[in-house]
């Protein structure tokens, strides 16, 4: 059977889909979908091909969109995707993840977690997370107070990690009934001296899990790059060798838990551009002990763009493809684990998310 590749792209003005084959050289673009709503993340079930898109519209509020025909038609639902009356209403759906037994998870702004056990028709609030004692200390970051990252355990449906800005990483081992912060060892450079390693309150930017090793987590933080080998109970800095401790995405290799791809930016108060205005993806092959800049085919001058936390992805082919979308609406692709890059789409709206879907047939 022929392999079909789809890149699912969320933008400030709708979702787009790029289609190609295993060569990953030629791509065709379709969209915009989802009535040009801002779409924060688009994911798909590789088994069924069902696509979900999380977003929120200034007029009409939050919803999760769904397509079961490869993007040709879409429906949306927000049934149950709401806080109790009197609380600050949900503005937008921000993140999505599919658990190992088919539960669909959605993170929202203001930060909270919802689950759907019927493919996105109906949603239930995971109240224990928003009732966590630390909740009063959660603060909005530049993107709002958002639950922007969800990492399900690959086999255990009760285990899940979430990333909240600005609150940190939290984990459950009982299906969401209780939650614990998992931030030990990550810094808050902006806190007063002596208070830079709290239990919670860190500005996590992205989480990634090492392939085949659910205890191996990586975290790009506002203040540093980290690895954990115990499911987030403790974190170790792996930022030595990177051009900056600041960036948004972190993408794990589909098979090698020691390989990770990053896009460091020049700093939180320096414009948040490519360092020296020259674009590079940074890769480690040894779990963060060393880093290599990958620049071939990427703009090496006047690259004043940023890449947001959900706007980078890897596919599952051999060798793995890596993709990222920019604030300027360009999409770059590598079919060889980052060695060489080409621009496969440009002039899109600001890209908020990129995911890769591999399907046979």
């Amino acid at each position, binding site marked *: 059977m022929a392999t079909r590749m789809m890149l699912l792209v969320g933008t400030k003005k709708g979702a787009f889909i790029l289609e190609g084959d295993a060569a990953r050289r030629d791509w065709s673009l379709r969209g915009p979908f989802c009535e040009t709503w801002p779409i924060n993340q688009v994911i798909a079930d590789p088994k069924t091909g069902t696509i979900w898109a999380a977003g929120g519209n*200034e*007029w*009409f*509020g939050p919803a999760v969109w769904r397509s079961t025909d490869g993007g040709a038609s879409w429906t949306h639902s927000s049934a149950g995707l*709401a*806080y*109790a*009356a009197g609380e600050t*209403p*949900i503005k937008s759906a921000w993140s999505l993840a599919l658990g190992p037994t088919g539960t669909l998870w959605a993170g929202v702004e203001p930060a909270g977690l919802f689950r759907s056990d019927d493919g996105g028709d109906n949603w239930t609030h995971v109240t224990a997370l928003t009732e966590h004692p630390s909740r009063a200390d959660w603060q909005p970051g530049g993107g709002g107070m958002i639950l922007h990252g969800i990492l399900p355990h690959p086999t255990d449906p009760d285990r899940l990690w979430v990333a909240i800005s600005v609150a940190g990483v939290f984990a459950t081992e009982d299906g969401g009934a209780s939650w614990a912060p998992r931030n030990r060892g990550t810094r808050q450079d902006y806190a007063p001296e002596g208070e830079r390693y709290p239990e919670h309150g860190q500005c996590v930017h992205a989480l990634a899990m090492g392939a085949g090793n659910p205890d191996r987590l990586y975290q790009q933080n506002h203040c540093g790059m980290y690895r954990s080998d115990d499911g987030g109970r403790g974190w170790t800095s792996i930022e030595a060798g990177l051009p900056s401790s600041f960036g948004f995405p972190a993408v794990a290799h589909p098979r090698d838990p020691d390989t990770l791809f990053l896009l460091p930016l020049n700093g939180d108060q320096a414009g948040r551009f490519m360092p020296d205005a020259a674009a590079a993806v940074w890769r480690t092959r040894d779990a963060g002990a060393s880093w290599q800049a990958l620049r071939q085919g990427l703009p090496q001058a006047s690259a004043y763009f940023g890449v947001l936390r959900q706007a980078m992805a890897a596919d599952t082919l051999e060798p793995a493809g890596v993709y990222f979308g920019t604030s300027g609406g360009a999409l770059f692709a590598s079919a060889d684990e980052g060695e060489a890059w080409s621009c496969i789409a440009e002039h899109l709206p600001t890209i908020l998310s990129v995911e890769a879907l591999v399907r046979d047939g």
Partner: protein
Amino acid sequence: MAEPACVFLPDALVRLFPGAPRQVAVNAGSVAEAIAELERRWPGMADRLCDSSPAIRRHLKIFVEGERAGLDTPIRPGGEMLVMTAVSGG
């Protein structure tokens, strides 16, 4: 049976609900009842019009007989309710 009220819906809203018309006749004595009737016909439409406060969404306005309305505003038999989207964006 009282004469139904006429509800005017914005294009951006009806595009989300295939088959929904821009103009709908509803039997409703208030804005909240009209929205409940819209929800009955097009499940999910109430969520697009109202948030969980509960309140009409911040960037929508509803007018009854030309006057700014809230969820409790009454609608007379044969009256008109107009839903408008804010003009904004970039």
